[in-house]
């Protein structure tokens, strides 16, 4: 009996042990958690696996990235090689630096561990480590190797492409080398100029050499990983410093004796005696602008008033008035300011009629540009890179990158904000007196049409087309003439208070409006 009982106990124990093994095996397979191996630089790392997904944290650490986990959301932040990747459970969109990489299916969180499908590693993680990887399902093994060259397969760790813009703001010239990614660089002053050599990265140059019509910089030349800013004459010096967002290296060139940098920009030179004022009738073509309850279209009102303003201003100020459009045509916002810049206009007046969903909204208001709500970094650039770029619009200085354009355009208007504010005030005061509309005051807003103007620029909302009473007013020739005279008088007042910016005089030959297109 005792022998039989012992045998039974052993059998039972064996069965229990077998059952426990079975239980744990089942647990493992049910949650799908097991491991694979990742081979990188001759070392093997265990990577947790859930179903067909792999642990993001394990793989990232194996590649040498720093991994931090938000304990509340479980979102992983992976940093290294100057890049950042965010892996959040529940999404198939992976933010990598400023881009979104789309993967086949969402990442998921299992017991606090983020798992992602294979393409996450192939498309997002491995390229971040300048590597490529293949998965062998039979061996359950990732083999990760460094990408050939340093390009990283075109993913974020690739070469740095550089755009160039040259801006002269007396007494210095700034050469902005806009980078596709932030890259370490080494500046070196040589006799002919200043060299910027990028370290650790290959450089995709926009050109081999380009000459510039600039008093201090003759050309910019690219050779290998080095850009040379070539001085126009001896006796110049330069310094280079990095700025971010967008990433760029700014080379500041100045004369040795004049201690150029840091000083605020000199006031812009007085405009040429022949003053040009650009008047911009808002909207046009298919873009009707706001439409009133009675069917009046903003584009028509603005053109009618603009023509009256064009006739009225030369009666007050000796000037030539140019309209951005003198027909029902569509013009982009940037083209409107480009025209004003091209004409070297002394003022830019954009005319609009307002609308609001608020039934009670009525009256006139005058806007000038607000930089506050636009990219704070652009404002920082405005501060750092001095303020004025007289005569510089988009496209000058070989700017091919839109981000670079933003900076240049912000710089352009920021130099004139004070004058724009005074002009807005003068116009609003006159509108209040002459047209007796409700005064909504002067305001600032990030309006695109004001951003690129290299002269004082305002946007006048003459009344609310959405307000039935004001729509009627806006249709009337008397009201339109009153508004035009108010604006003209304000322009005269503005120049009277700013002697040196323009002559104040009577009628001038050639003061008729000239359609831009």
């Amino acid at each position: 009996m005792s022998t039989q009982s012992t045998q039974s106990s052993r059998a039972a124990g064996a069965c229990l042990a077998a059952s426990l093994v079975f239980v744990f095996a089942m647990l493992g397979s049910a949650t799908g958690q097991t491991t694979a191996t990742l081979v990188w630089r001759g070392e093997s790392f265990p990577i947790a696996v859930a179903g067909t997904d792999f642990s993001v944290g394990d793989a990232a650490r194996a590649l040498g990235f720093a991994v931090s986990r938000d304990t509340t959301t479980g979102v992983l932040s992976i940093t290294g090689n100057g890049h950042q990747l965010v892996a959040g459970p529940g999404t198939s969109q992976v933010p990598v630096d400023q881009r979104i990489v789309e993967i086949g299916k969402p990442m998921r969180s299992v017991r606090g561990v983020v798992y992602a499908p294979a393409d996450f590693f192939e498309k997002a993680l491995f390229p971040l480590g300048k590597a490529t990887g293949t998965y062998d399902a039979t061996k359950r093994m990732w083999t990760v190797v460094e990408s050939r060259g340093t390009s990283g397969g075109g993913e974020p760790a690739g070469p740095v492409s550089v755009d160039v813009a040259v801006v002269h703001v007396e007494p210095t010239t700034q050469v902005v080398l806009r980078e596709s990614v932030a890259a370490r660089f080494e500046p070196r002053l040589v006799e002919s100029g200043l060299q910027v050599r990028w370290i650790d990265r290959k450089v995709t140059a926009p050109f081999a050499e380009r000459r510039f019509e600039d008093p201090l910089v003759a050309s910019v030349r690219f050779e290998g990983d080095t850009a040379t800013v070539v001085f126009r004459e001896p006796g110049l010096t330069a310094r280079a410093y990095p700025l971010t967002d967008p990433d760029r290296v700014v080379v500041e060139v100045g004369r040795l004796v004049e201690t150029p940098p840091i000083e605020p920009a000199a006031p812009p030179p007085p405009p040429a005696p022949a003053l040009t004022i650009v008047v911009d009738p808002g909207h046009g073509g298919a873009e009707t602008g706001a439409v009133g309850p009675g069917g009046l279209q903003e584009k028509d009102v603005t053109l009618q008033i603009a023509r009256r303003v064009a006739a009225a201003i030369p009666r007050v100020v000796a000037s030539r008035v140019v309209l951005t459009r003198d027909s029902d045509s569509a013009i982009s916002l940037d083209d409107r300011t480009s025209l004003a810049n091209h004409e070297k206009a002394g003022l830019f007046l954009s005319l609009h009629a307002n609308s609001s969903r608020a039934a009670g909204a009525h009256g006139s208001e005058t806007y000038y540009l607000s930089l506050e709500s636009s990219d704070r970094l652009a404002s920082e650039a405005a501060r750092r890179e001095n303020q004025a770029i007289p005569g510089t619009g988009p496209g000058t200085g070989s700017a091919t990158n839109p981000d670079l354009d933003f900076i240049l355009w912000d710089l352009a208007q920021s130099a004139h904000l004070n004058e724009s504010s005074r002009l807005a005030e003068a116009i609003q005061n006159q509108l209040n007196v002459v047209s007796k509309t409700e005064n909504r005051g002067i305001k600032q807003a990030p309006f695109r049409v004001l951003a690129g103007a290299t002269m004082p620029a305002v946007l006048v909302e003459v009344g609310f087309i959405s307000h039935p009473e004001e729509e009627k007013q806006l249709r009337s020739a008397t009201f339109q003439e009153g508004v035009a005279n108010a604006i003209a008088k304000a322009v005269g007042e503005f120049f009277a208070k700013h002697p040196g910016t323009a002559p104040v005089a009577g009628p001038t030959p050639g003061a008729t409006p000239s359609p831009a297109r």
Partner: protein
Amino acid sequence: MSRRAAALLLVAMAVAVGALLFVNRPSSSTRRFRRPLAFLRVTPATGALTPMPGTRATPTESVRVTLFFADSAEGKLHPEERDIAKPAGPGAYLRALFEELARGPARPGLIGVIPQRIQLRNGFLMPAGEVVLDLSVDSSLSFGSAEELSIVAALVDTTLQNVANTQRVRVLVNGEPAESLGGHVDLTRPLGFLRGELAP
């Protein structure tokens, strides 16, 4: 094998099955939902925990969000708070905010500023504190500047007010960068909080 051993094996198997059932209860997702989400800049709405009668308390968590709507007199923006179901991730949160804005205000005297013909195609939470809102905008829409400012400010300010650690909102139109929605507000660059549109 004796009957006793066989019985023991059966018991062990039963334990195993029981353990499996226990472990495989829906767990990870609900646990994730119970935790506060780091991108939510909200006050937890404590009154929103509503256990179903007769069942174990299943918390349907909600969050309190601040939305901006215009007043019907002058069109300036005013905040309105409301509780919404806690969304599952940043994309869902941005969509929920947009939908609440589009739904309009509850308070009398306020009006919604998002036209029906503007929809949110997608919203992304990017690194470095930037949110991307991709709008579908009907080409027949037209605005005056006050109306356009209200729309953009309601979107931008509501987003920045509610999504933690964000400073800028980049607005795309129909999946692409655009100069503006209707000829006024600059969308070519990310926008910060538009304070000028808030009621004093």
